[in-house]
């Protein structure tokens, strides 16, 4: 709690913390907040621009918010698809309209969504649609579920291995330390990019893309713990010379107990910082891998594979709404980094640059 209080004293950290909190709440309630489901698609509305929402009607009076549907037309002479608003019918927006059925938090079946058009047949594409006519806004929320959580999956692998390995290596020292560290260096030397390309070819194709991606993350983590273990080992080397460790030894505590109960807890501040700072790197890795076709595959959504669609030249020019996943990646990564920096300043004041008295 002390940490959270301190975070709130730092403007940037406070903003980052709130943004991340909001993002996680939104993806948790994605089914409810998104007007459409992950798989909804309207064939006739491929690449429709974002719906315009009006609060002032054609006579200049204030009105309940409403929107118009789009009509798609094809001009054969120019070989061009154009979207026009169908001004003949207004679709008013309302809170909690009935839409596609889903299970709220995976438990309670319901048809209500947070917002949408009051009438059936209305289209509300806050951020336009993609090539298959799927609502980009809804898919952003569902995609966030994958993109924002993969980082934590890797933490589950990296940290237990790294802590224990670094702890044992540093504590015993000598030949054990030398052997364990050379092995860790060998692991670090494995080129991860080429490993991924090989994995993409040999992973069994019977897996769903989420399983496959989880496996890739775990494998990446399995070669990623070595760097972390080296830092932990360095810290343990200095901690083991402290008096309390010597005292522990004289009482006759087992080595494992000393490492787990007394030495590793001393590295907590570093671990928390390293954890916060490593999450964004996995968010970026996910988008990079999806971009290369190694990550989450269609029709599942992730920010990375949604961004892939924006790669095409005309999409950047004419369909800027397809770039929104990139904006979200940027915001999420920046927030994690700001938060990580702030936590480091709080937990580890010695490393703080600038202000100290010398």
């Amino acid at each position, binding site marked *: 709690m002390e940490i959270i209080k301190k975070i709130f004293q730092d403007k940037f950290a406070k903003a980052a913390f709130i943004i991340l909190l909001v993002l996680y709440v939104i993806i948790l309630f994605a089914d409810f907040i998104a007007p459409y489901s992950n*798989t909804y*698609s309207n*064939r*006739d509305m*491929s*690449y429709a621009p974002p719906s315009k929402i009006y609060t002032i009607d054609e006579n200049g009076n204030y009105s309940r918010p409403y929107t118009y549907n789009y009509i*798609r037309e*094809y001009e*054969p002479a*120019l*070989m*061009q*698809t154009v979207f026009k608003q169908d001004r003949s019918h207004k679709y008013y927006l309302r809170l909690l309209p009935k839409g596609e059925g889903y299970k709220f938090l995976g438990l309670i079946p319901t048809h209500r969504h947070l917002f949408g058009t009051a009438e059936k047949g209305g289209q509300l594409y806050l951020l336009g649609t993609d*090539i*298959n*006519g799927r609502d980009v806004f809804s898919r952003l929320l569902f995609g966030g579920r994958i993109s924002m959580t993969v980082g934590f999956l890797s933490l589950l692998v990296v940290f237990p291995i790294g802590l224990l390995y670094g702890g044992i290596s540093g504590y015993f020292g000598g030949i054990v330390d030398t052997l364990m560290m050379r092995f860790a260096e060998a692991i670090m030397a494995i080129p991860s990019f080429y490993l991924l390309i090989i994995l*993409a*070819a*040999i992973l069994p*194709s*019977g897996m*769903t*893309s989420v399983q496959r991606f989880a496996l890739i993350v775990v494998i990446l983590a399995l070669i990623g713990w070595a760097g972390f273990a080296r830092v932990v080992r360095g810290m343990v080397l200095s901690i083991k010379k402290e008096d309390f460790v010597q005292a522990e030894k004289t009482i006759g505590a087992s080595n494992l107990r000393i490492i787990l109960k007394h030495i590793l807890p001393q590295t907590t501040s570093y671990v928390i910082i390293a954890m916060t700072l490593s999450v964004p790197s996995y968010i970026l890795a996910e988008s990079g891998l999806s971009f*290369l*076709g*190694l990550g989450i*595959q*269609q*029709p599942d959504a992730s920010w990375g594979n949604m961004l*892939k*669609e924006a*790669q*095409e*030249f*005309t*999409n950047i*020019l*004419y369909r800027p709404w397809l770039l929104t996943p990139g904006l979200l990646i940027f915001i999420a990564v920046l927030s994690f980094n700001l938060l990580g920096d702030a936590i480091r300043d709080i937990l580890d004041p010695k490393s703080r640059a600038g202000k100290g008295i010398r």
Partner: protein
Amino acid sequence: MRADVPEKLPDKFVNQELKNIDYPDDEKNVTINGVDYLQSQAPVGKFGGELVISTIGEGPKTFNPCNTKDATSSSMAGLMYDGLLTTNPRSGKVVPLLAKSFEIDENDYTIHLRHGVKWSDGKPITADDVMYTFEEIVFKGFGNPSTMDAMMMDGKLPELVKIDDYTVKFTTPRPFAPFLRQLTYPIVPKHYFKPYSDKGESVFNAFLSPDTPPKTIVSNGAFRLKEYVAAQRVVFERNPNYYKINLKGEKLPYLNKLVYMIVGDTNNEILKFEAKEVDVLSLRGSNVARYKLKEPDSDYTIYNLGPDTGTLFLIINLNNRKDRNGKPYVNPTKHSWFANRDFRAAIDWALDRKNMVQNIASGVAEPLFTAESLNSIYLNNYIKGHPCDPNVSRESLTKAGFVNKDGILYDNDGNRVEFDLYTNAGNLEREALGVMIKQDLEDLGMKVNFKPVEFNSLVNKLTNTHDWDMAIMGLTGSPLEPHDGKNVWTSKGSLHLFNMRPSDYKVDDRLDWEKEIDDIFREGALKLSFEERKPLYDRYQTIIYNQKPIIYLYSPTRITAIRKKFKNIFPTPLSGLIYNLDEIYVE
């Protein structure tokens, strides 16, 4: 003379947009001072300048015209080496090129060579070079053996005799329609190639690798290699000894230089075109609209060349064989569905081709229902296709014994209908197609696991391990020669993907319609005239359309932009935009 193309091409080959183009007459033979030149009838242009074309990928893998296995290498080697005959870009007929003329008498094909034409190093081109090319390269299967395979009939190759220094005669064991078109094979210089081919196939295959010093290469095409910078560009320059002349008797080509810029992907290509670094751009999908819109105030012209020669399709695995360990390639339950024609028909009727064209190809494509591509002269025009109608699908599923309970489809043994659909990952078009097909089929109650996988692993599945259910794939095609599809359609073909048999397979377990297609391809090769062959190839397309082992989706329209400063541009649906590089000039 016999022709394997119709006297007059059907109307669709006179593309509306290309109607106003004033095509020059066909080239003529002209003899000046004892040299048999080929005279272009195109308007006389100016000499000089350069044309920059882009090529996507890694660049050429070899300059050896006999050993090309990819499109980039073969188009570049094709510039450097001419064959005896060529395809007329407008009529599709086989016409002389390096040969001065040819005569066909039953199974004898007599070829007369030009007098006085030379290799780029000044040595004369004679019958010895032709004899060498066929006898010591093609017939021995050196390099890419596809021409040898195509010339082989009942295990026998044609005979070749030298009549004099400028005449050779081929004799086929039997009348064989696709033979003549095989004589477009590039002729190579004996004095330059023989030292390498004598050392065996592996030395020959490594010969003329991309790092060969350009000055040493001896060729006979309109252009010769000037420079190759790996992964950047390939530069060709005028071959001063080329045998084609213009109406004034000046030696072609007009261009000083022809540059192939090697680009990574289509986006890169477009940016290079925008930056005016590249002069020709082929447009797809939504880019067409952008460039059409800008065309009136731009420095380029856009040509619509009609449908592409390739095909895009959904293929179903009908394989019922077992692997070495006795495990079936395809789960027997799934196989019982796939083997059912009504099941396949249900899939076909459920596919929304209209929206595939509209959404994925941005309207720049046409729905496809036939095994021959839309610009093939052998296209079966009686196959009109059908609209998307899920009700027809449901009827045929019911007929096939499937039951739909609460939106979930079961077969008559109570198994849920669930299968995998593969395509190659990283291809936006095919991934979007997969998403659509998945939805269409899930509306019928099937469960489709859509799995984009890396391209080479997909090809391995299709051709080696056979452990797939359905896939979205494409194949290249030929607008003029349906026999080229032999490897796909005959039951033992190397790309008979929907029912692959091992190469040493002895059991005759062909389906009735597979047998009929085998017969059609054997017979079609023996018939010589277009009129005799057309009904046969119509029949094979009808069989495929009825049996639906492969369900065709759509065929993109080829739209190409070229800068206005280039003249003598005579695009044709058969040959594309810049087939006549020797006649194109810069204004």
